[in-house]
């Protein structure tokens, strides 16, 4: 049970860090503990929190999607153009969702059908999708949106400091958690990440699942695109540049193992809060976008260094317990289920 207890420790550590940061900010950072600020902090995280959900599934299954921010921007642009062309909001949203699925399907096809590593594919689509956005609207910005959309982006739920924009995440997060922990498909995703060969030989339809995860990522990015557009009341091709850093940091910080097969949503939820607060506090302290990126980047690296060192210790324990074969090569690559198959010796 060492693994589970380590995760629990990491989750607790994150929880303590988050609460600690909240307390610190409430006392030492002026303007933090206001309803308005809390609401802003939550709102600012709405899209990233959404994108984190499919990213968790992807990384668990040993894939990655670097094109999420570009899909968000492109779907945002598409929504703007549809609305500008007079398409009513609801059908436009629906079309945009489908479009997001198509973008995700493109990623999925390149990974499953062509067999290219998802790292390279999504690096390419990161550029290509954003480029398409530029082709569609250039450097213009679409600013006219129906009130329904902009109200959604601005208002809070009733009298609470909870903005409407976080509601899609609040609905989807428990869904994702249940699916991951309590359904067959969740088991299979863990299996694919834990040991792709064993999963395949146990009858798991690995390629189909991978493809669907990329499609899901595209669709969630489309939802995020709608939310972003409504919140900022504009659609630009260069929306959300750099989001992927935050999303990946949150996922890895939250305890999802970078090599796949391990991690739960619980820690990720704490990580979302932590990163949201960090950004908020930095913003309140007049620290600009690039410098904020520095902090996030440092958090990413440090969290991995920390989890690596604890993992190393735990792996050492485990290796002392039981081994059915001799020493195994250590070459593990992240985000790649396409490891070379070396023939086994008898």
């Amino acid at each position, binding site marked *: 049970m060492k693994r589970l207890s380590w995760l629990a420790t990491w989750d607790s550590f994150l929880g303590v860090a988050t609460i600690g940061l909240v307390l610190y900010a409430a006392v030492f950072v002026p303007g933090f503990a206001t309803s308005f600020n809390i609401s802003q902090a939550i709102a600012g995280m709405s899209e990233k929190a959404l994108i984190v959900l499919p990213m968790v599934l992807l990384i668990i299954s040993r894939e990655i999607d670097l094109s999420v921010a570009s899909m968000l921007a492109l779907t945002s642009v598409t929504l703007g153009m549809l609305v500008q062309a007079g398409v009513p909001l609801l059908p436009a949203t629906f079309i945009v969702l489908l479009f997001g699925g198509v973008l995700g399907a493109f990623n999925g096809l390149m990974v499953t059908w062509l067999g290219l590593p998802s790292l390279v594919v999504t690096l390419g689509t990161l*550029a290509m999708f954003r480029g398409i956005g530029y082709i569609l609207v250039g450097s213009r910005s679409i600013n006219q949106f129906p009130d329904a959309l902009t109200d959604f982006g601005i208002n809070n739920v009733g009298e609470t400091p909870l903005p409407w924009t976080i509601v899609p995440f609040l609905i989807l997060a428990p869904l994702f958690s249940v699916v991951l922990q309590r359904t067959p498909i969740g088991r299979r995703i863990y299996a694919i990440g834990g040991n792709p060969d064993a999963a*395949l030989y146990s009858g798991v339809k690995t390629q189909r699942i991978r493809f669907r995860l990329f499609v899901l990522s595209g669709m969630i990015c489309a939802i995020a695109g709608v939310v972003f557009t409504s919140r900022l009341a504009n659609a630009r091709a260069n929306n959300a540049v750099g989001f992927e850093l935050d999303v990946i940091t949150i996922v890895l910080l939250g305890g999802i193992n970078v090599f796949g097969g391990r991690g739960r949503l619980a820690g990720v939820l704490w990580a979302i809060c932590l990163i949201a607060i960090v950004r908020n506090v930095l913003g309140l302290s007049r620290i600009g976008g690039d410098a904020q990126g520095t902090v996030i980047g440092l958090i990413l690296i440090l969290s991995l260094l920390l989890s690596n060192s604890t993992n190393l210790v735990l792996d050492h324990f485990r290796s002392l317990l039981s081994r*059915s074969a001799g020493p195994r090569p250590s070459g593990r690559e992240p985000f790649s289920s396409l490891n070379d198959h070396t023939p086994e010796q008898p």
Partner: protein
Amino acid sequence: MNPQPTEFVSEKRAGECVLGLRNATKVFGGTVALKDVSLDLRSGEVLALLGENGAGKSTCVKLLSGLYKPDQGEIILDGVPVELTSPLDAFRRGISVVHQHPGLFGDLSVAENVFIGHMPVDKFRRLDHAEMQRRAAELLDVVGLDCGPSVQLNRLRSSEQQLVEIARALSAEARVLILDEPTAALSQREVERLFSVIQQLRTRRVAMMFVSHRMEEIYRLSDRVTVLRDGHHVATEPVSSMSRDRAVQLMVGRSLSGMYPTKDPQPGEILFEVSELGLGDVFTDVSFAVRTGEILGLSGLVGSGRTEIARVIFGIDHATEGTMRLAGTRISFHSPSEAMAAGIAYLSEDRLDQSLVMDQAILSNATLPTIERATVAGLISVTKELALVRPDLDRMKLRFRSYDQPVKTLSGGNQQKVVVAKWLATKPRLLILDEPTQGVDVQTKAEVHSLIADLARSGMAIILISSELPELLGMSDRILVLREGRVMDEMERADATPERVLKAATDAVGENGSCASTDERLAGTTSLPAHQEPSSSKPSSPLVSAIRRLLLKREFGLVAAMAAVIIPVAAINPRMLSGPNLTALSMDAALLIIVAVAQMLVLLTRNIDLSVASVIGLSAYGAATTLHAHPDLNILAGLAVASGIGLLCGLVNGVVVTVGRVPAIVVTLGTLSVFRGVDSLWTGGKQISADQVPQAWLDLTTGRVAGVPGLVFIAAGVLLITGFVLRSLPLGRELYAIGSNPDGAELIGIPVKRRVLGAFAVAGLLAGFDGGLWASRYATIDARVATGFELTVIACVVVGGVAIRGGAGTALGITLGALTLLIIRNGLILIRVDPLWLEGVYGLVILGAVTINLIVTRRSQSHRRRKLP
């Protein structure tokens, strides 16, 4: 006529012990692989190591080659106990090993593979290519591989690669040569060649050990024979005093009675049959049938094709010939899930890699294929999960603490029980068991055997693949013996004896038995067609020219692409070919090339550096601000500052990757932002403009020599130095090796971590240097310098043929890649395409180039790759 290996030398008197094991014991987890084994290798003598699968031969080889250390006992070298710290250490002490599965470097040439780790250098410490080619050619001649030393290794088929492995073992001044099943992949002619080499080495008093299951070869070649059984030493005798029958008996040795469940088989209808089934050159013309309630045993040694047959039946691989029928209906499965749906289950022999997800719980593993049945309203119900597998787990008396326990913590035997329970839950009609009791304790073995017998009694058809003769003979109703992909013998239980099975499996010739296989072998037709071609390596000459054609294609393709852009654009807008435009283009190319070289160095080692653009920005500002603050400094100081900053950044990346063991993609994603943020803080929102720096600084790059901007010369210099290092220094070749096969590189003794750290450091240095040049060229420097440039760099290297997976890339390729990319950009700009569209173009270029690379690689390796899922 036969060329002689000149490198082997031994001062030993004939017959003196050079290397040996003394009371060596080796334990893995719960299994004792070797127990108290002693043997010695004597100079001028060949010792054959005999034993069934699992007897411990492989472990002996690994101990003697420095891969493992004995848990008890010692390794004796020249009469003194030694500790071999690594295979490289053993190699340096004069122990050469030819492994069964060569761990070579596909992206390097044959000659480089032979000499990697000890490449010949001239007096300037440069790689002596000519010497390396010459010696490699000699060695290739000795082993009989007819192929040029500069052919890339992954163009060769496995038998040819095995010969390269042998050549590598011969390339050092070794006193000991250990050969682990070296002939398994070789044709008859190649085997004869190897034998003559061994005879030569004998006269040079080299001590040799020969592990093989081919009795014919053992009796021809060896002086003494050591027989192992179940990890114990059974006998060591001169070969002349051990008859083949006796050797087999010693290998088998156990009494068979009493250990296996009694059966009175009542087989029913034929459930499953295969007819002339074949898979390429792995197995061919295999036909058999299995009835309900029957246990069909498949026997044979490594390479006989049993597992491969099972994989075809289960849908993992796809047969190239023949048919399969299940209950009379013709079937063909394209995936394991289809096979499972039809009622077939396959318990793989590779428990670790193919049967279990080690980190996950017992229950999760056991219910993976059948988890659908344990749901209530779509959610998994633990009660139902347990109901699926508990009966079987209890029946097999699984010993565990809780169902949540990760299977990693179980013993081998208990792990196997989980696997068996997993497959039983699928309620199969046909159960294929591949080495079901391998690495399993005696108690569990008995339990598993009893279970198998029960299953047969209840009507399941079972195919039992086993290398353990007693198990096979005790459990099976009928036995099929395979050797090298063909069915050699088929017998009923009553007629089956260990000797008969082993003989069919190993081509052992009895004193009064004839063996058709010997005659076939001498005629060169025993091995399957692919092995038989004596000139299988001959096609490497057309292969070499095919490679050249391919290479030329890429370069040709890029030049053609450039022309395809230049010609129409120049027609539309003649400014493309104007002086200023070409100058600007060449300077852009120079800046891109320098940083692309940096990226290539990192990519070669199978890493990536996303932070290069941020490093450029940071060091550009560093250079500019230094010269702004101290205008009287030599302008080279600006470059020095920039390079220094870059070096620091590179070291940060490198240390976190090598020491911190964080994957490069994640590290550099982080440092991309960190460095950019530092840049932002440093500039504080300001910028440095042209009038704030010395003119001499600006002239550094724009000043011309013979009409060509200085920057271009600098880039050319970087390219030449890089090309030199990569081609002519052993260090450079090692970078390729690391990317081609990181684990193999470690084993060979290449200091992987140091090299990777060095690659990142130099990459940072170059990026910083580039940043300095950038500041010199563009004059106005703010925090946004080179934002997003990493994408351009990656597009450039990918187009230029650098493999993202490591091991491939050239300076020339990068140059052409940069030019192609920039010409496309230039062309688009000149025909008034919005520059913002360029990002999309780069993305498309990356995807296209990677796809093309993939297709090209797959096509050139399709003849030796088996399709793995």
